[in-house]
């Protein structure tokens, strides 16, 4: 098979790992080109290893992973129908990893509480590991949440880009509507083709939301372990916490300090809550603002009929902060602080009011909604904050 050349085990392992990573590509692409992609990588790895040794191979791997991530993502984006299946597969693989890890460390497998096993425990342990380094539980919480959000950032960016692309495609879609009048099936197929060509995936923001839910749930669970609702002694809390840790995570000896800057995690803090809820809603509305799109102004003053999908898209994005809020209240740490929930709709109203205000200012036309929303929003916000 080989041309009599010394075959390093490193190359064999590297080839095998690369081949298994090709699973990131859609099935159709893998079937057509997978073998050739692997072959090219193998040839390149051999050449680099011969020329520059292990260091060269490492550099190749860094480049190859970047290449794989970018191209697999792009290829998957064109294959919108397979994405949800991929996510399911990924979730199953993650579950298996966690279960096997649990089994290896504890020596026993308990299926009694699957949520606990799969979601709460890993996040909880991560939190304690970070806590062991930074010695402040609130700071650990911030770091873990930020890290998680950072992982989601590419998805959010993808979503934002798709929204913008969809907006800029409106005239083209409008034309298609007229062209295929009365042929809904042909229209749908052509539309799908247009979306595919511009890399717009139909995976909506709901996926992004759903991924957050278990994480928030896990943090909430962690909170309840650290801050039990019934008063019990610190020693019992520490014992409970230690009981949830993996074998390799350092155990706690004392209860962690709950103070962070001016706030205290034990009692509800209106200011922190305002920043969390209001800030989040505001950022969301601001991110999806459409005042910089020419169609938004045109649609406003001449009531040009915009594509239905575009309208739905806008409506969904306006509803997202509310949906987030609902999920937050039902599942997240927000349940601890639900006395202050007036803040959130207030902030959404303010952000929406501001959005409409800037848009109408650009178009040079007053917007009757702007006054109403802005007027409704502020008292609500203030009332929420002062509770």
């Amino acid at each position, binding site marked *: *098979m080989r041309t009599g050349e010394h075959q390093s085990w490193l190359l064999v392992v590297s080839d095998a790992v690369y081949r298994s990573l090709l699973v990131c590509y859609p099935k159709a*692409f893998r079937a057509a080109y997978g073998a050739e*992609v*692997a072959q*090219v990588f193998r040839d390149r790895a051999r050449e680099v290893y011969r020329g520059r040794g292990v260091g060269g191979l490492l550099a190749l791997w860094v*480049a190859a992973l970047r290449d794989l991530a970018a*191209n697999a993502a792009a290829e998957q984006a064109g294959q919108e129908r397979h994405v949800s299946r991929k996510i399911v597969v990924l979730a199953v693989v993650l579950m298996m990893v966690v279960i096997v890890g649990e089994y290896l460390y504890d020596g026993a497998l308990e299926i009694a509480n699957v949520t606990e096993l799969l979601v709460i425990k890993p996040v909880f342990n991560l939190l304690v590991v970070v806590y062991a380094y930074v010695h402040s539980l609130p700071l650990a919480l911030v770091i873990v949440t930020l890290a998680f959000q950072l992982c989601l950032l590419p998805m959010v960016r993808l979503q934002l880009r798709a929204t913008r692309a969809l907006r800029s495609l409106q005239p083209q879609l409008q034309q298609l509507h007229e062209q295929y009048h009365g042929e809904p099936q042909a229209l749908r197929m052509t539309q799908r083709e247009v979306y595919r060509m511009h890399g717009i995936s139909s995976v909506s923001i709901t996926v992004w939301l759903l991924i957050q839910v278990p994480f928030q749930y896990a943090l909430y669970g962690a909170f309840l372990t650290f801050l039990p609702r019934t008063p019990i002694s610190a020693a019992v809390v520490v014992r409970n916490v230690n009981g949830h840790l993996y074998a390799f995570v350092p155990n706690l000896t004392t209860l962690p300090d709950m103070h962070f800057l001016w706030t205290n995690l034990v009692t509800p803090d209106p200011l922190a809550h305002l920043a969390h809820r209001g800030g989040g809603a505001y950022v969301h509305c601001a991110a999806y603002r459409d005042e910089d799109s020419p169609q938004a102004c045109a649609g406003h003053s001449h009531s040009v009929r915009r594509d239905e999908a575009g309208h739905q898209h806008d409506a969904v994005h306006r509803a997202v902060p509310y949906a987030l809020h609902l999920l937050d209240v039902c599942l997240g740490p927000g349940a601890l602080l639900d006395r202050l929930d007036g803040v959130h709709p207030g902030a959404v109203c303010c952000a929406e009011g501001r959005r409409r205000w800037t848009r109408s200012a650009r178009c040079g036309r007053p917007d009757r909604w702007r006054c109403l929303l802005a007027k409704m929003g502020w008292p609500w916000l203030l009332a929420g904050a002062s509770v």
Partner: protein
Amino acid sequence: MAQVGGDVGRFLPLTPAAFHILLSLAGGERHGYGIMQEVSASTEGQMRLGPGTLYRSIKQLLEVGLITEAGQRTDPALSDERRRYYQLTDLGRSVARAEAARLARLVAQARERKLLEGLSGETRPGWEGL
């Protein structure tokens, strides 16, 4: 100068990866790794196509008919594995020519505006970012 008609014009501008692939195939049929080596050699290592980028571009070029497969055989310079070879179609050749003409016009403009004086051949970093 090539005729940039409606048929050819709709493929322009090509992505850098696609143009490099067409360029390397203009010198004769090659397999994937051959294309990669040729691109890297002709740009003095500055443009390195990753396997993913390479085959995604090949797939797109095949789909629009700018290149075709030219059968499978072994490459005596490498191991005795069979490799799939690719070649330019007539359409691919005219598209590559039109793209080259487009770029030549841009370079001519850049030269006119004195952008090329005292330049040491700097381009964007390639796949392995050497």
